[in-house]
């Protein structure tokens, strides 16, 4: 090996000779030095991976571990008694608890099918998650059909907008739903104006399911649209040329490729809605408590052992679904390079035939439903924020916020600190989540043994109860830990930032990894052969090419942080580190008006932040 590239080798245009005499000891010494620095450069990625792992352990695995351990260690003695009790308690597991208590499965099954069955909290949580999943798929499917198969003005915008509900702060959505479906909500006012009797959807399962669909149907639509668009028109044409009719070709060629995306959307929806918290807290209260709400309640009652055990049960179920999905995904990943997508049809029917008109009529009906579910809550919130008790227009609620800012007592929630905290935390959390997410994405897109395990470990924050993360950070970091005689303690604000970063970085991984996966390996190898180290290739080639994904990841991390409620509400107790969502929750408990006003403020701040992120990141090709 001749060491440095400089001056060595042949030179176009010259004779290509190398004066060997001039290279000598000097060259050899240089070679040694280069090799040493080369080693160090080669380790940079490893170093980054170690830093990421340490952060994850310190900010997630350790704090969560300290909480979860309480479920199995009571008074210093390892025990499974807490678990056994939860599993056998009909309050948690309903009829299933009797199964765990040793009763005959047949008797249990009969009662489960009976009308008086008790689901228990876990059962109810799974039940509402399943209903929400069905509703989300039902609502997302027509949207995917519309977005993937039709061409119309604003299609791209609409496609981009499907990301919006997912990143809207959940507590704000809850406020929007109260403003829409509450006793004095928009829905009842419309019904009243039409002379119809009012309906009370508040604190019902329906409200929760619709709110969950609001959140997750666009997600389902997104993944399905992407899958549908990556169906190669040539595959359909081949099927048609082989004798399949349009319907048969759809079932044989299109459906099998879109179906995995439906499962993806469904699995994610189930996991998200299984761990739901703010929506149920605001729309269901403790009467319709899910596991997460009950964990929160147990934590408030300082019953940590039971809270931890219940959180573990929740984690096992969520992680099970997530792992099953990841396995499925790994088996069903198909490359969609060089695909010619199916041609889009016009929304205006080409001919007045049934086959042309019927789907379009269906979509028109769907548009009405989608309008009620997606637009009404936000519109109602904005409307409610400028509507007084007498129904007239007023700015009283905003005036209330300003008054509170000026004259509020120290213990009261004031708007400006909430806005300031939210922005600071979100910026800091994004800055932390971005490198973590990129490093994990780089690692998990490489081939090595145990990759799935690393993938799952890195994705675990998605499945772990935010309450437990918050509690773990509160007791592990904020109250301090002692390591080798040194005491480490973080402020509530730092803990919140860390919790938000941990919650947000999986989304960075998810937005960056597909781009990395799709990168041509020979691009990386070319850069390396030209002299770039592995770390340098990431900087020069891989990051620029997946940059839109990085920007999208940043937007996600920012939005997750700004809307994060669960861990924040635990960590912000007693501190003045409350954020906008926490402020909304404190207002909503008293009066809806100021909560909706605060919700509008949150909406505006979030929207502006997105514009800023997009500007900072440069051109992004769709989220």
């Amino acid at each position, binding site marked *: 090996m001749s060491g440095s590239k400089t001056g060595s080798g042949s030179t176009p245009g010259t004779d290509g000779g190398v004066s060997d005499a001039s290279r000598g000891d000097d060259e050899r010494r240089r070679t040694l030095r280069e090799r040493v620095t080369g080693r160090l450069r080669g380790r940079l990625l490893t170093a980054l991976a170690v830093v990421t792992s340490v952060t994850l352990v310190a900010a997630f695995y350790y704090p969560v571990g300290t909480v979860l351990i309480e479920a199995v260690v009571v008074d210093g003695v390892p025990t499974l008694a807490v678990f056994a009790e939860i599993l056998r308690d009909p309050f948690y597991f309903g009829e299933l608890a009797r199964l765990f208590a040793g009763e005959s499965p047949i008797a249990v099954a009969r009662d489960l099918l009976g009308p008086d069955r008790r689901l228990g909290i876990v059962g109810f949580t799974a039940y509402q998650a399943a209903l929400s999943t069905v509703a989300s798929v039902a609502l997302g499917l027509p949207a995917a059909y519309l977005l993937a198969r039709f061409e119309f003005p604003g299609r791209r915008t609409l496609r981009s907008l499907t990301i919006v509900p997912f990143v809207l702060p959940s507590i704000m959505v809850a406020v929007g739903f109260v403003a829409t479906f509450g006793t004095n909500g928009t829905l009842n006012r419309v019904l009243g104006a039409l002379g119809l009797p009012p309906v009370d959807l508040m604190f019902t399962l329906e409200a929760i399911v619709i709110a969950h669909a609001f959140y997750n149907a666009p997600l389902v639509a997104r993944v399905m649209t992407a899958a549908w668009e990556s169906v190669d028109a040539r595959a359909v044409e081949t099927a048609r040329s082989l004798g399949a009719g349009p319907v048969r070709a759809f079932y044989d060629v299109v459906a099998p490729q879109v179906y995995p995306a439906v499962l993806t959307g469904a699995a994610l929806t189930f996991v998200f809605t299984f761990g739901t918290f703010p929506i149920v807290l605001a729309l269901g209260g403790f009467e319709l408590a899910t596991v997460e709400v009950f964990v929160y309640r147990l934590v408030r009652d300082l019953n940590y052992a039971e809270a931890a055990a219940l959180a573990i049960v929740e984690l096992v179920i969520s992680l099970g679904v997530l792992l099953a999905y990841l396995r499925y995904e790994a088996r069903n990943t198909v490359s969609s390079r060089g695909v010619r997508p199916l041609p889009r049809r016009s929304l205006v029917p080409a001919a007045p035939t049934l086959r042309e008109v019927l789907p379009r009529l269906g979509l028109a009906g769907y548009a009405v439903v989608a309008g009620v579910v997606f637009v009404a809550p936000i519109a109602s919130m904005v409307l409610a924020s400028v509507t007084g008790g007498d129904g007239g227009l007023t700015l009283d609620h905003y005036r209330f916020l300003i008054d509170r800012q000026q004259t509020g007592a120290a213990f009261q929630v004031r708007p400006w600190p909430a806005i300031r905290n939210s922005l600071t935390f979100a910026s800091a959390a994004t800055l932390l989540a971005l490198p973590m997410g990129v490093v994990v994405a780089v690692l998990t897109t490489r081939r090595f043994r145990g990759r799935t395990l690393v993938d799952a470990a890195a994705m675990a924050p998605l499945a772990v109860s935010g309450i437990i993360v918050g509690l773990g950070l509160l007791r592990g970091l904020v109250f301090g830990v002692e390591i080798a005689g040194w005491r480490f303690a973080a402020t509530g604000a730092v803990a919140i930032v860390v919790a938000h970063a941990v919650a947000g970085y999986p989304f960075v991984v998810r937005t960056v990894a597909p781009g990395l996966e799709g990168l041509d390996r020979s691009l990386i190898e*070319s850069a390396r052969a*030209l002299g770039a180290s592995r770390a340098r290739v990431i900087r020069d080639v891989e990051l620029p090419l997946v940059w839109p994904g990085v920007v999208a990841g940043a937007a996600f991390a920012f939005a997750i942080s700004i809307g994060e409620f669960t861990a924040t509400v635990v960590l912000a107790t007693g501190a003045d580190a409350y954020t906008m969502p926490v402020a909304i929750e404190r207002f909503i408990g008293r009066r809806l008006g100021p909560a909706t006003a605060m919700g509008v403020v949150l909406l505006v701040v979030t929207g502006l932040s997105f514009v800023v992120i997009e500007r900072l990141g440069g051109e992004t090709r769709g989220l």
Partner: protein
Amino acid sequence: MRRVGSERAADSPDDPPAVELDGVTKRYGDAAAVDDVSLRVREGEFFTLVGPSGCGKTTTLRLIAGFEEPTAGTIRFSGESVAGVPPEDRDVGVVFQNYALFPHMTVGENVGYGLNFADPPEGMSRSERVAELLELVDLPDAADRDPESLSGGQQQRVAMARALAPGPDLLLLDEPMSALDAQLRERLRVQVRRIQSELGITTVYVTHDQEEALAISDRVAVMRDGRPEQVAPPRTVYREPSSRFVAEFVGDNNVFAGRVVHVEEGDAVDGERDDAPRIVGVDVGGETLRVNAAEAIDVSPGDRLTFCVRPEYLRIGEGESLVHATVESAEFLGETTRITLDWGGRDLVVRTRDPLSGEVVVGFDPADAHVIGIGEE
């Protein structure tokens, strides 16, 4: 099966080969993609690895580039082992089949990328070096263009310029032309060879196209199942294939196998020349064909012998070993017509100027037959 003849040129022991593979094996699980390969590429040589897909040629190239580490064996550059040296420190230039131009950089930035890690030659600025390389590949005005706006052939040349810009010691080309159409491919390979000779840069070229391999190389390694079957200059590979596989892979060929019925001691004078040409009669399908077995020293009646005759040496109505065959099919190729004959259930391929039909007599001179091997197949 014993092999006969072939590798003749020996390396001078004084200068170590530019690239040397010594017992190199690369396994993926149980399968060996490259199986105990030993090769030497001389300084300034244009060396080609050719073979059907899955023969291990690309893996061999990737091992040399450092994208893969061998499971066993040693790779040396100019006598020094490169084990554990990452690709960026190997001073190699690589051109891939799909060119792998960085889509987010202009052509000029692509060509200049390697200059981030190596200085341009003395007295030359970075941009001068980029311009020089683009000039070299006949794309002088392309620096500001977007790589995706270029045609396949132009992209290939940019990739070439990019690989050469840092002044590598070794140029590695992995099927750089297989995505191009035939005419362009022929034009480009002349250009690639011209650039290579101009720079005198040691080059390892991978292709599945035997014609390209013969046209462009100083020496060729014909690979099969992870091993080189024959390493020799193109003419030798073509005229004196060392195995039936090489004989059939490189160009059109007629391979015959049969038992030796007699050995004519030829014109050996007083036993002075043991390796003097001698004619052997070989029984193939009941006909005795006379073959010049110059280098087949240990041949005696009863041995099984495999030999080949190129289509251009099979002549209609001429030659010594005449056989009767019928025309089965003909492909008009322009310059010649390629005719497949049926001779007692065997296919014979001949090339003629004029079309043929019906029954014909074909023959060849003993000197135009090449003995591939002796012994059981």
